[in-house]
C-alpha cells in the first residue's frame, strides 16, 4: 500500500513535471540581450549611485521579466568620470551627432531645452507612466523642472536647495528668545520676516559688536543661480508659464538691485564682497563671524566637516529666502539633475532605458545616492526610508525647503539673460551705477540680444 502510494505520488509528480515542461516549451521565451549605456556628468566617486542605480534597476527589471516569462539580459555600461561639465556635455552632444550617444544621461535640467529641440532626447513621458509609483510620488515641482514646453522629458535624479541661514548665538544676543528662533522659518514662509528685516537684524548684530562691519549680511561671493532668488523675493518671474518666454520684470529687478545697494549703504555688506575667496567665506560663516547669510543644502557637510562646526542645529537656523516686499514671496531655488533617455537605439531600447530610470527612482534606491552624496531626495516617501529619515539634515531640509523650490527656466536663451542680470547686480552693488541705471542698461542689452524671446514688463 505504502509502495503503491509512493509510486502514484512519483507518477503524479512525473505527469506534472512533463506537463510543466511541455507548458513552458509552449510559452514563447523571448530572449533579448541589450546593452544600456549610462553617462553621468558632474559626478565623482561620491555620486556613483547616479549610474549604479541603473545597474541595480536592471537587475530588478530582469527578474520582473523572468517572472513574466521573458528572458531579458541587460548589460549596463556606466561612466561618470568626465572632464568637468563642459567635457561631459561636449562628449554627449558630439556622440549624439555620430549616433553614438549613451542611452541614458544624467545631467542638469538646463540641457532639456536645447537637447529636446535638437532631438537628442526623447520625451520620457511617452515611455513611463507618471501616474504609477514611484513616479507618481515625485515632488510635483521637480517634475515641472524636468519638463519643457508642456512635455515631461526627464525624471529628476536628485535635488538640492539654497536656504537662508542665521547664526543663533548672535540672534539671541540681539534679543531673540528660543521660541522666536524656532518660529523664524515659519515667519519667513508666511512673509512676516522680509529681506529688510534681515538688514535690520544684520545692523543690530553689527552694532552690538558681534561681527565686524560688513559681516552682518554675508551673501554668496560669486555669480550663481542663488541670486535669482532675490529677484523672485521681489515678485520677479524668470519665465512666463503660458508662452514659455523669458520674463524681465523691471520693478522686481530694480528692487532686487536696490536691496543689495541698500545693504552696502547700511554697511552690513561689504562693497567689495564679490570675489571674496570661498575658503575664507566658508570658514567665516561656519564659525559665527557673520550674522545672516545664504547658501546651499550641500553646505551642511562643509560646515560640519572641513570647517569643524560641532553643533550645527544649535548654532544655525535655516529657512527659505525671505520675501522682499508684499509683491514677492519666500522662496528657494533648486538645480536638480535629471535622467534623460536619448534618441539612441530603437523604440524598444528606449522603453527599457526609461523603465530602468523609473525603477532607479524608487525611494530606497534613490536614498542611497541622496545620503552618500549629501543631496536631497526626489520623492515624498523618502521621508519614510530609515536611511533618509534618520539623517536629520536631509529630512528637515527636505520638509522645509523642497516643497517651495523653483528652478531656473529651461530655455535656450537663459544664459545671456543670466549674464546680463549679473552684470547689472555687480554694477549696483559696487556703486558704479544706480539701480535704475543698471536696470535700464540690462534692458537695452536684452532687447539687442534676445529680441522676441523675452517679455519685458
Amino acid at each position, binding site marked *: 500500500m505504502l509502495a503503491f502510494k509512493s509510486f502514484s505520488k512519483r507518477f503524479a509528480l512525473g505527469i506534472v513535471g512533463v506537463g510543466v515542461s511541455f507548458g513552458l516549451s509552449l510559452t514563447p521565451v523571448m530572449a533579448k540581450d541589450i546593452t544600456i549605456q549610462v553617462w553621468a556628468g558632474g559626478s565623482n566617486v561620491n555620486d556613483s549611485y547616479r549610474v549604479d542605480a541603473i545597474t541595480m534597476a536592471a537587475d530588478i527589471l530582469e527578474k520582473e521579466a523572468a517572472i513574466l516569462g521573458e528572458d531579458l539580459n541587460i548589460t549596463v555600461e556606466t561612466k561618470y568620470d568626465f572632464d568637468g561639465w*563642459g567635457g561631459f*556635455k*561636449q562628449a554627449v*552632444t558630439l556622440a549624439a*551627432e555620430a549616433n553614438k550617444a549613451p542611452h541614458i544621461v544624467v545631467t*542638469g535640467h*538646463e*540641457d532639456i*531645452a*536645447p*537637447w529636446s*529641440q*535638437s*532631438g*537628442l532626447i526623447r*520625451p520620457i*513621458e*511617452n*515611455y*513611463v*507612466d*507618471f*501616474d*504609477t509609483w514611484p513616479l507618481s510620488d515625485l515632488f510635483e515641482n521637480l517634475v515641472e523642472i524636468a519638463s519643457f*514646453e*508642456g*512635455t515631461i522629458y526627464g525624471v529628476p535624479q536628485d535635488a538640492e536647495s539654497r536656504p537662508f541661514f542665521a547664526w543663533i548665538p548672535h540672534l539671541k544676543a540681539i534679543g531673540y528668545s528660543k521660541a522666536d528662533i524656532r518660529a523664524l522659518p515659519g515667519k519667513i514662509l508666511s512673509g512676516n520676516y522680509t529681506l529688510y528685516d534681515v538688514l535690520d537684524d544684520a545692523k543690530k548684530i553689527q552694532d552690538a559688536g558681534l561681527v565686524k562691519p560688513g559681516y552682518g549680511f554675508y551673501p554668496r561671493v560669486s*555669480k550663481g543661480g542663488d541670486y535669482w532668488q532675490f529677484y523672485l523675493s521681489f515678485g520677479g518671474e524668470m519665465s512666463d508659464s*503660458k*508662452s*514659455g*518666454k523669458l520674463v524681465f520684470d523691471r520693478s522686481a529687478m530694480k528692487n532686487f538691485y536696490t536691496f543689495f545697494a541698500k545693504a552696502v549703504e547700511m554697511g552690513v555688506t561689504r562693497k*567689495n564682497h*564679490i*570675489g571674496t*575667496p570661498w*575658503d*575664507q567665506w566658508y570658514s567665516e560663516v561656519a564659525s559665527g563671524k557673520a550674522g545672516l547669510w545664504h547658501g546651499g543644502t550641500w553646505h551642511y557637510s562643509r560646515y560640519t566637516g572641513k570647517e569643524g562646526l560641532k553643533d550645527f542645529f544649535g548654532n544655525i537656523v535655516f529657512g527659505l529666502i525671505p520675501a522682499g516686499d508684499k509683491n514677492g514671496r519666500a522662496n528657494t531655488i533648486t538645480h536638480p539633475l535629471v535622467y534623460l533617455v536619448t534618441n539612441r537605439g530603437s523604440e524598444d531600447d528606449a*522603453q527599457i532605458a526609461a*523603465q530602468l530610470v523609473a525603477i532607479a527612482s524608487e525611494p530606497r534606491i534613490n536614498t542611497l545616492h541622496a545620503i552618500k552624496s549629501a543631496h536631497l531626495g526626489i520623492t515624498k516617501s523618502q521621508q519614510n526610508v530609515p536611511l533618509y529619515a534618520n539623517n536629520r539634515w536631509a529630512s528637515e531640509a527636505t520638509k522645509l525647503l523642497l516643497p517651495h523650490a523653483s528652478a*531656473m527656466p529651461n530655455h*535656450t*536663451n*537663459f*544664459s545671456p539673460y*543670466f*549674464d546680463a542680470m549679473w*552684470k547689472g547686480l*555687480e554694477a549696483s552693488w559696487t556703486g558704479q551705477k544706480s539701480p535704475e541705471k543698471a536696470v535700464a*542698461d540690462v534692458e537695452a*542689452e536684452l532687447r*539687442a*540680444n534676445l529680441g*522676441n524671446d523675452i517679455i519685458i514688463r
Partner: protein
Amino acid sequence: MSAKLGYIFIAPALALVVLFFLAPVLMTGVFSMTNMSTATGITGGSYQITPSVLSQLGDQGFDRKILKRIGSESYSISEKGLLAATKADVKTELVEELRERYLGETFASRRLFERFLKKLDNRPRSIRTLKSTSPHFRKSLIKERFASTKELLQSLEEMDLGLTQVQTDELVDASYTGWIWTGENFRKMFLLPETKQILLNTGFYVASTLLLFNIGFALVLAVTTFYLPKGQAALFRALWFLPRITPSVLYVLLWKWLTWDTGFINAVVTNFGVTPRNWMLDTAANAWVTVIMINGFIGASMGMILFSSAITSIPKQMLYASEVDGANRWQQIRHIILPQLKWPILFITVYQTLSLLTSFEQIFLSTDGGPGSSTEVWALSAYHTALDNYWGNLQYGYGAALALVLVLVGVIMSLIYLRFFRFDELIKTPRIEQ
C-alpha cells in the same frame, strides 16, 4: 620632372595644411553665417510644433483660430484609431471594448486618456502596452516630431485646416528645429556692449604682455646674460626656458599654488600681518598682473634666445673699439647692441602679437576670464561661446563668428606688418649673389 618631384615632396605638408589650417578656417567661415547651436544640432533638423512656436507665430499675426486648433492636444476614440490599433496588434478585447462603449469620446491630453484606459475591463496590463496603445488615438500636431517637410505637410493636410500657401510656409519655417543661414551673428556682435569690453581686454593683454615681457624682459635677459661668463649665461638662459618647456597645466598649477589663499605668497606675507587673499583672483588688477606674468614668462624665453644669438653675432671688434673710446655698458647697449637687434625685435613683435591674439590656454587654466569677465579675451570668449557655456546651449555659430574676426584680424595684421616693416628687404637676395 623636377617640378613633379617637388609636388610629390610637398604633398604631405600640403595635405596637413589643408586639413589643419584651411579646412578649419573655411568651416569657421561657414559656421559663422549660421545660427548653429546645441539646440539646432549640426547635422540637420526636423520639424516640431511646440507651444513657443505657436506663440511666436501668434506674435507675427498668424490666424489665432488655426493656431488654437494646431495647439490643442487631443485623443479621440474613432474608427480610424481603432483600425490603426488593430493593425498594430493591440488586444482585440480592448479594441472591442473601446468600440462598443466609448466610440466618439475625446480626451484633452495623453495623461487623461491613459488614466481612462487604465480603468477599462480589458486595460493594458503593462506600462509598455499602455504606452504603445495610446499613440493610435492621438489627433494633434503639437508635441509631435516630423522627420521631413513631407511628413509635416501630410499631417497638416490631414488636420484639414484650410491653410494658405503663405501660412503653410510660415508654419514650416517656424517649426524647423535645425540651423539656418543668417548674418545675425555679426549684427549681434556689433550691438552687444560686451564686445567692446572684450576688445579692450584683448588689446590690453596683447600690448602689455608683448611690451613688458616678450620684448622688454627678453631684451633684459639677452643683454644681461651676454655680459656674463659663458657657463653662467647658459645656466640662466636654461632657467628662463623652464616655463616654456613645462606642460601648461602643471605650470599654471604652480602659479595657483603660489597665489591661492593658502598658497606660498600668503604663507610668507601673513608673517608680516597681511591678511591672506587670492592674489590671482582678488581684483581685476590682481588677475591682470598674474595673467600677464604667466604668459610673459613663457613668451620671454623665445625673444631671449633670438636676441642672444643676434647679439653674439655682432662683431666683437665693435665692442672692443667702443670700450677703447670710453663707452660704458649702457652706451654700448644703446648705440651698438639695440640698433643691431632691429630685425629680431620686429620679428618677435609680429610673431608674438599674432600668437598672443589667438592663444588663451594659460588664461583659461588660470583665471578663466575672471573675476567677473575682467580677463576675458577675444579667443577665450570665442571658446566659451562655442564650446563651454554654463547654461547648456553651446552657440557654435556665434562662436565661429567671433573666431572668424580673429582670423581676419590676424591676416590683416600680417599684411600690414609685411608692408610696414618691409620684410621683403629682410629676405631679399644678398648683394653678393647678384
